[in-house]
């Protein structure tokens, strides 16, 4: 019995580190929805691009790990800038089906572009040397890298909280999320703010993808599988709610890792049950107003 408890605790830690990738993805997704009002299917593709960019800089060219991540963020941020200025800017006012299908079009484009550039096979670059090895927790090896991921995720959460609550830029974002017209009337430049938020969200997604590169598989299609979990998270936490997204990511990540251990057949099934349940009982999400 004690053994089972240890197993569960350990699995919680594994789930916690998986949660952090989901959190970085869901944070941008929910931020874009909250401020720009668009549910972006292609957000997962930005995650995928972040992973591929890091793989190229770090795994192929052999640059420093941190520099690679930084360059990936710049690249994906640039792609986000192009996406927002040329395409997304034109769809804020149109009907939901058209918005969703436009973002879906970008999934098709990015998935195939990745195959054209990098080929269709899955790749795993080597772990950075300073992260090799693992800590002994409850008699099981827990990789140092996972510990790093957990702290990185929490750090980003604190940073986001600080930016949104304590800085002027954060205030303008919150203002335009709650009342776009009023914010515009008091002199906030909404189009530029939207571009900034979109690029910022793209970089968060890229960071998730980049941090996952050494331990998770880099393959075409990771965007579509990740985005759907990010949807579950944003729904659980409430669409547009950052605190909710963090808790939602913890729920989904830990539930998934329990699922793999306890009920492998229903591992994926159960998170969609949670999603449907939240939608039916409290559609505004656990942390919705």
């Amino acid at each position, binding site marked *: 019995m004690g053994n089972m408890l240890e197993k569960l605790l350990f699995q919680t830690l594994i789930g916690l580190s998986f949660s952090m990738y989901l959190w970085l993805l869901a944070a941008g997704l929910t931020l874009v929805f909250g401020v720009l009002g668009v*549910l972006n299917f292609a957000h997962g593709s930005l995650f995928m691009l972040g992973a591929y960019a890091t793989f190229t800089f770090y795994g192929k060219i052999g640059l420093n790990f941190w520099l690679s991540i930084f360059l990936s963020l710049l690249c994906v941020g640039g792609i986000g800038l192009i996406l927002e200025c040329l*395409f997304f800017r*034109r*769809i804020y006012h*149109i009907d*939901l*089906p*058209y918005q*969703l*299908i*436009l973002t*879906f*079009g*970008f*999934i*098709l*484009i990015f*998935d*195939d*572009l990745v*195959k*054209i550039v990098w080929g269709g096979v899955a790749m795993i670059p080597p772990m950075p040397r300073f992260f090799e090895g693992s800590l002994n927790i409850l008699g099981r090896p827990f990789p140092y890298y996972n510990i790093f991921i957990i702290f990185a995720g929490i750090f980003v959460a604190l940073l986001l909280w600080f930016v949104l609550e304590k800085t002027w830029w954060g205030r303008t974002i919150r203002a335009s999320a709650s009342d776009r017209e009023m914010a515009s009337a008091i002199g906030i430049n909404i189009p530029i703010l939207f571009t900034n938020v979109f690029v910022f969200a793209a970089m968060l997604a890229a960071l998730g993808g980049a941090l996952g590169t050494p331990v998770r598989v880099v393959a075409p299609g990771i965007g*579509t599988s990740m985005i*759907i979990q990010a*949807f*579950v998270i944003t*729904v659980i936490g409430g*669409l547009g709610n950052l605190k909710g997204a963090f808790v939602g990511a913890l729920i989904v990540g830990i539930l998934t890792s329990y699922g793999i251990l306890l009920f*492998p*057949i*229903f*591992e*994926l*099934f159960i998170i*969609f*049950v949670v*999603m*449907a349940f939240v*939608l*039916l009982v409290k*559609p505004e999400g656990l942390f919705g107003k």
Partner: protein
Amino acid sequence: MKLKYFLLGALILFLFILPIFSGKYILYMTIHILLLSVFALGFNLLLGYTGLLSFGQAGFFAIGAYACAKILLVTPSLLLGTIVGVISGGVAALLLGYLCVRHTRIYFSMLTLSFGMMIYSLAWKWREVTGGDDGLVGIPRAPFKIPGILSINMNPMENYYYYVLVISLLSIYVLYRIVHSPFGLTLKGIRDSENRVAYAGISVRNYRLLSFTIAGLYAGLAGSFLPPLENTVTPPIAHWTHSAEPVMVTLLGGIHTFSGPMVGSIIFYIIKDIIVRYTQFWLVWFGAIIVFLVLLFRGGVVIFLTERIWPLFKR
């Protein structure tokens, strides 16, 4: 108006004589176009007529396909397989729809997405019933038989083509009658102004549920066409990316016309067929076409032809 019926008659005649002068590949593609048309038409009853965007139709499609496959693996009767497929899709839509129609707009879309993905995860993981990620294989294209009356061998592609064609045309006609009935008008009313319809004493939720169920029946029918054609069913047909297919072709053809989803399905396969001749990466181009369409002409192809191009000839 007369021209419209003439063109329609010509198209149907063309479809019936198609096997005389075309090979297996064209018939195979046409079956896929008919299948997607039926799937998308049912979907558009929800989107274009009721104003509800479902992102889980692939789930009902898959239920129809798996149910039909299961029947064909046990009893070699094509008609029975189709009937069970249709009913399974409809029953599933009725049960899940009861929960889904509590919401509208984005919450409805998210709810249907979650139910669709539940069905996907069962198809993928519930190995005993669905064969897991290998899917169900070796499904026979069973003969069409009515006991004591007739039995037609379906192995030749032409025969199966005629089977799919006749059932598709019948179901399309039925749907045409549905959307032009008082029921269809009420759905449009709900789409345009939910409150007014409710004030007229009509249960908005029941009408939405019925619309959802009909869409499920059509998804089940489209799904049941698949196993005898491919001899196999696999989990990806239930995935949410497959749910996006009817959305894409419907928007391509236009949501506010009855023929939009069909025209969209035809264009979808023609574009695909042309691009794959040059590159296997056809989706990047198709994605670009989708983006272009959404940004530049949202009415869809049918509206574009009837309101922009057709008047040029009339003058």
